[in-house]
């Protein structure tokens, strides 16, 4: 995906992340940018996804509260927002498609926690609906 010029605010932010298997894996809540050493426009290096990143976009008291909660939930390492490297982005359309399964992403931690600690304990959680 290198080299494409994007209207990041319009074509990337708030879009759905879809993993290799078509599973939904969070939103593009924020972007990590890097200024190239030789100058020129900033380059997107990672997608930030999850409540931590979202909190900073929302701002205000609500945002601060959400951010405090998110860092307690430890979705990313060292309490920073979960990060998806831009290297695994395969295609950008009405959703942002990734080339890896969501289980390998930091953004999946809360989903996995909810599954393992709550939903998996209910009978039939692992069976397809009939």
């Amino acid at each position, binding site marked *: 995906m290198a080299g494409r010029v994007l209207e990041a605010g319009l074509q990337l932010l708030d879009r759905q992340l879809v993993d290799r298997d078509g599973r939904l894996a969070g939103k593009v*809540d924020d972007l990590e940018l890097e200024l190239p050493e030789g100058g020129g426009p900033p380059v997107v290096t990672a997608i930030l996804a999850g409540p931590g990143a979202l909190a900073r976009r929302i701002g205000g008291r609500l945002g601060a509260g959400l951010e405090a909660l998110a860092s307690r939930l430890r979705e990313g390492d060292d309490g920073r927002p979960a990060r998806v490297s831009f290297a695994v982005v395969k295609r950008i359309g009405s959703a942002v498609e990734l080339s890896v399964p969501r289980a390998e992403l930091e953004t999946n931690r809360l989903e996995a926690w909810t599954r393992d600690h709550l939903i998996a304990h*209910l009978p039939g959680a692992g069976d397809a*609906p*009939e």
Partner: protein
Amino acid sequence: MKRLFAVALGILTAIGGFVDIGDIVANTETGARFGMSLAWVVVVGVVGICLFAEMAGRVATVSKRATFDLVRERLGARVALVNLVASLFITFLTLAAEIGGVALAIELATSVNYLLWVPIVAFCVWLVIWRVKFDLMENVFGLLGLALVVTAVALWRLDPDWGGLLHGATHPAVPQGEGHPSWWYFAIALLGAAMTPYEVFFFSSGAVEEGWSRADLVTNRLNVYIGFPLGGLLSLSLMAGATLFLEPRGIQPGHLSQVALPTALTLGKLGLAVLLVGFFAATFGAALETGLSCGYTIAQYFGFQWGKFVRPADAPRFHLVALVSIVLGAGLVLTTLDPITVTEYSIVLSAAALPLTYFPILVVANDPDYMGDKVNSRFSNALGSVYLLLLLVVAVATIPLMVLTKAGS
């Protein structure tokens, strides 16, 4: 042949699925108080829901993105969050009202107090959401909901003064002894009942759940354009029944049994039994739709996996939200707050929130990035814009009218 069957099934479930506790309460109360003078609002509401449900279904089919997904994308994280809170609150109130409605319908059949049924109903709603496949769920409750046709049969058997009913409907005037504010307040309630936002959350997510492709766009159109207007006729027959039986006797329906009165008096026990099946299916089906819609909206805002097309373990946060909503909804009804009152508030507040849902749909339905060659026609856009203006006026007027009329009392 298979396609024809799918279309017929879709239309039938759209008819049965159109009516919910909001429509039942709003149409009966309006008929009992204002006769047929507000029938035109049902027509306006049905045209509106057809227009926007078709749009939402088409957008979801072509772009694979359901309505709240687009709300987030188009309005951004902050504004969409405000929208989420408002939409979720209204959908949750509606869910509570539907759970109460199911319990009231069972009370009518069993004479056991509805509060005892609430936990059982809530458990069954959750169980269906947890275990039953999407299309099976939709078909069973949609088809059973068709039992409400008995209200139209009762009307036809009665053979009332059709000219009088039609005259009342085509010459809208505020009846003597009623004020303009109350009349308009009930107009807003009827519009909110016909166009409740959860219908498009559910409808658009359903298109993704059922894996619709471009080949299904014709089915989408037929389901909406034929099914919803016929569902609207059921609403109108509830209104006409109330106009004929309740208005002359000065009865203000405060309970589901009074809603059943016109059918019971005309068709007797058997008619009543069929009507109760219809009440049950319509409210239970809508409880499923609103319970799922709580999950759909939150999951689509945050980007969680949602839907019944995956195993519950693969959409854990979606199922957690649905479960918690159902438990809280049942809790609200168990406070002994009257379910009919909850219904009245849910439809009026729905009306106030309509632009929040319908504006982003109209915008995205015009975006060739998402829609390719399936963008809106000029006609859809013109009509859609007129409706948005109307919905904005309604949104502004709702709360002042609510205060002025003391919520229509």
